């Protein structure tokens, strides 16, 4: 895609895009009618429960299910031996094979007539465990004498002689960092640690599976991607993909955590064995112990700066544990950490490490927040040491169009500088601070992507539009799609109704992730609308008896292209629709594409915090988000993404953490001690939407969902460090840690 200076949407006057209509699923969601994962029931339905390993690491010698099977009311028991599919990490994670690899790892499941019977049955399953030594800390797991989880998962990038828990090594960058450090007037090196956090969606995973003896199955599930669920589960069950129809329920949050499967294949297997529909719902404890939190990390970072604020070199070595299987998001941390800065010399090294913790899943810009945290903390410290303005230094070094990103490519049109300039001009930046208060700044970056997308748009006889897309609506995307269809077709928002179709209705759709939906599904929606427009123009041409090419579409009407085409009154979409049967049959548009060309996105966050020097308690006083959205289709939901990401980041920075005991068990598997921010912890979260159009989208849309969680860890850490008068180097900055840092600095 050429990086033309002019965007196709330049000068376009939008009528629907950029407004704030009520979302189409709104009434259902404020009246309790919306049906989420656990809200579905089917006739004859059983309930399924999972038996989970109490051990962090244990060989499973045998599982005796006979007593459970004999319990009246039990209709099926499933263990790993029921799955004959070839072993892979996702299946192993859904149901343990030879070893249980973390506290909470599923080892068996039961379907019974009631939860009470199912829970009784779980107690009757005898698992013979050989308990093995375990490791849950990333640095410990890399030691040569650490307990080893897998013998054969290390790949060719890992040098010989390391622990087998080290799975993969990544390296990025360019230039010569040593030469860069030699040019620096000031160098800061620090080591940081961040705890694992969970996406913390309020809706636990839930599904209802129904499989008949003919091998056809239906699955109702809360997921970020029902096509993914189908494509992953069918082979596990030895089914043809086409025989499994998956319907996405409303989804109660995901943030990346619902981009894989946990219960789904088990529910299908229980349904197959019992011959009855089976509903499975996780408890909150299950969610925290056995779904996919993000990585905990240990990172060393070194940055050099000249007295004028020029960053001469940046280096970081990052160690991420992603739980019991390969795939921590360390490469994205290593790629994204220095992305906001145009550096001559930069190098990052990443290590993917396994430990006896649940297999990580994506969490909003996976891997990037930790990278931004360490880099932005050290830049902040350098600015302090050199007495430089923190925003000016960032502006001086900011990546702009043509800059070579630390992960390789040169950037196209990007909006980082615009976010920094907006921050500098904002009253927040010059507002006075009181005693024990500090202000923190941080930038952040995320890639965004597109992927496979299918959209179908039917023109109904009365001129209304039914739009079908295949991506679960996790935060208002049906509203955005409705708006883009209405915009393109030139009809009112209320004339379009958008639904999330099941897997049998449309072609493949990638998961709702990577901030892709408004970009990719939006693009496909616009193209589907254009497809329908072409057909409608052709119908009008037929009616008028003129050439198709002589008809244009404007404001919801087909019109003759010019005086030479003939003199006909414009024909509205509704008029064309009413005559569809007479002019050739139903009219529909569709578009299937692997949407490429998602624009990267940058943000700058500003945070004021107050620290109680006697207790280490932190209060967030003020918070402002400046982020490039490319084009905000529904600004209220764009703001919502900014605010939600910022607050998840605040929680990560201050109080959220996975706490493992010496026994390798998770000590805080509940919302009581896994402390997500509550309403009284927070101020309003101000937002400033910057719009630097993405050349890869007809309206200029960039994904906005993920970037907003990248800067807050550092923005909060920098504010707290300023307020406390000491650099904090470990997340979360819980009160005991902050107090200890203050007391140590004073001693």
């Amino acid at each position, binding site marked *: 895609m050429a990086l033309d200076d002019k965007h196709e949407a330049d000068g376009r006057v939008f009528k629907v895009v950029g407004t704030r209509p009520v979302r189409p699923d709104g009434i259902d969601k404020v009246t309790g009618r919306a049906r989420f994962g656990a809200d579905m029931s089917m006739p004859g339905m059983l309930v399924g429960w999972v038996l989970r390993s109490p051990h962090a690491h244990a060989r499973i010698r045998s599982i005796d299910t006979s007593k459970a099977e004999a319990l009246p009311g039990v209709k099926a028991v499933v263990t790993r031996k029921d799955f004959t599919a070839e072993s892979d990490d996702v299946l192993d994670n859904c149901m343990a094979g030879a070893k249980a690899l973390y506290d909470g790892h599923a080892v068996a499941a039961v379907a019974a007539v009631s939860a009470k019977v199912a*829970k009784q049955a779980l107690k009757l399953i005898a698992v013979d465990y050989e308990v093995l030594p375990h490791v849950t800390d990333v640095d410990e797991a890399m030691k040569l004498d650490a307990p080893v989880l897998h013998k054969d998962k290390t790949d060719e990038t890992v040098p010989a002689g390391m622990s087998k828990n080290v799975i993969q090594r990544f390296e990025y960058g360019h230039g010569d960092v040593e030469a860069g450090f030699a040019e620096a007037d000031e160098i800061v090196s620090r080591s940081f640690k961040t705890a694992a956090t969970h996406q913390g969606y309020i809706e636990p995973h839930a599904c209802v599976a129904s499989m008949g003896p003919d091998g056809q199955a239906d699955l109702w599930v809360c997921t970020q991607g029902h096509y993914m669920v189908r494509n992953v589960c069918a082979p596990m069950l030895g089914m043809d993909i086409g025989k499994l129809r998956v319907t996405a329920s409303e989804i109660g949050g995901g943030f990346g955590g619902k981009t894989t499967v946990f219960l789904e294949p088990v529910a299908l297997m229980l349904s197959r064995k019992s011959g009855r529909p089976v509903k499975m719902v996780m408890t909150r*404890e299950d969610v925290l112990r056995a779904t996919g939190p993000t990585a905990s990390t240990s990172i060393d970072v070194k940055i050099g700066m000249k007295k004028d604020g020029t960053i001469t070199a940046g280096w970081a070595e990052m160690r991420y544990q992603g739980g019991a299987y390969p795939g921590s998001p360390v490469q994205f941390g290593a790629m994204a950490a220095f992305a906001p800065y145009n550096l001559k010399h930069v190098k990052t090294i990443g290590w993917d490490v396994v430990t006896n913790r649940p297999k990580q899943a994506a969490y909003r810009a996976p891997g990037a927040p930790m990278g931004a945290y360490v880099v932005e903390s050290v830049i902040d410290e350098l600015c302090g040491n050199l007495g430089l303005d923190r925003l000016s230094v960032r502006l001086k070094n900011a990546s702009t169009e043509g800059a070579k990103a630390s992960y390789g490519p040169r950037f196209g049109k990007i909006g980082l500088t615009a976010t920094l300039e907006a921050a500098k001009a904002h009253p927040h930046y010059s507002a006075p601070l009181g005693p024990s208060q500090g202000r923190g700044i941080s930038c952040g970056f995320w890639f965004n992507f597109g992927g496979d997308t299918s959209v179908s748009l039917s023109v109904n006889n009365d001129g209304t539009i039914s739009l079908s897309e295949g991506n679960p609506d996790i935060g208002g995307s049906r509203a955005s799609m409705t708006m883009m269809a209405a915009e393109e077709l030139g009809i009112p928002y209320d004339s379009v109704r958008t639904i999330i179709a099941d897997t049998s209705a449309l072609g493949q759709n990638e998961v709702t992730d990577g901030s892709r939906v408004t970009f990719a599904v939006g693009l496909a929606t616009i193209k589907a609308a254009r497809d329908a427009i072409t057909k409608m123009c052709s119908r009008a041409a037929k009616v008028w008896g003129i050439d198709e090419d002589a008809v244009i579409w404007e404001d919801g009407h087909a019109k003759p292209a010019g005086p030479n085409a003939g003199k006909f009154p414009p024909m509205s979409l509704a008029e064309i629709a009413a005559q569809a049967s007479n002019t050739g049959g139903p009219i529909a548009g569709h578009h299937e594409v692997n949407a490429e060309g998602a624009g990267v996105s940058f943000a700058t966050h500003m945070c004021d915090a107050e620290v109680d020097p*006697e*207790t*280490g*308690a932190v209060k967030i006083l003020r918070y402002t988000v400046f982020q490039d959205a490319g084009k905000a289709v529904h600004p209220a939901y764009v703001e919502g993404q900014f605010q939600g990401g910022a607050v998840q980041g605040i929680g990560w920075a*201050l*109080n959220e953490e996975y*706490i493992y005991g010496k026994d390798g068990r998770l*000590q*805080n598997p509940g*919302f*009581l*001690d896994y*402390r997500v*921010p*509550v309403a*009284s*912890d927070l101020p309003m979260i101000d937002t400033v939407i910057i719009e630097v159009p993405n050349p890869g989208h007809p309206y200029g849309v960039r994904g906005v969902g993920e970037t907003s969680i990248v800067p807050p860890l550092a923005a909060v850490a920098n504010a707290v460090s300023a307020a406390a008068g000491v650099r904090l180097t470990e997340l979360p900055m*819980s*009160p*005991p840690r902050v*107090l*200890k840092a203050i*007391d140590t600095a004073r001693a």
Partner: protein
Amino acid sequence: MRYEAPRTLESAVALMAGEKGSAQILAGGTDLLVRMKSGFAEPDLVVDIKRIDGMHAITAEKGGWRIGAAVPGAALGEHAGVKADWPGVVEALELIGSTQVQGRATMAGNMCNASPAADSVPAMVAADAVARVVGPNGTRDVAVGDIATGPGKTSLTNGEIVESIFLPARPKHSGDAYLRFIPRTEMDIAVVGVGVSLTLDASGTCTAARVSLGAVAPTVLLDQKAAATLIGTKVDDAALAKLAAACSAACKPIDDKRGTIEFRTKVAGVLVRRAATIALQRAKG
């Protein structure tokens, strides 16, 4: 499991005493139902005391207040009289959980749950509150501080039920306060809790004080050494410093997921100073 909702205290006592398996009282249920959900408690009998006359009553008695065992935090918080006399106790109860939990949670339940971190207990101990216990062998009054004997353990014997809690008459020029430390602003269990109740004479000199500490030992501590540092002083900065040091010295906390020994010990001293300052202001009116 059986569920019973007797209409009289006598029948409740009989049910509790007669149960051969495990029996639990259900007042607000905000602890019991959580323990049942997790499988921690699997009672054979649950006796709901909320249908018993008087359990929801707040009545004036001998210048003080008798609070029924089923009075939830929200109701106590709406009672102007108790709030005026014992604001520290009311505030402590109101700190427990959410608004939703306040709709159910009771002071008696908080006490009988016997958590070292129970918010209302240090405040009640500072207030010298007394629990009225009814059992098969009659009625007895027990100091609130003597109910819990260890985490999750109480001195109540088989069939005994707490019927009410009595907050004594408030002497003139007295004030109380309860402060706790939690990582968030709401919804957490106390990492440290501190209750202070003190009385001044006409000159502003402290003549009596009770200081209690929560979450720093297996049960709530009544810290008499700390109280002694206030008596005879004007509760000035010097006295507060001694108070803080005494409280920190009295702490015997543990390291756990909610806090460290070091943190709890230090913050107990910080909070007691702040709580005493609030109590002082209240005593001065």
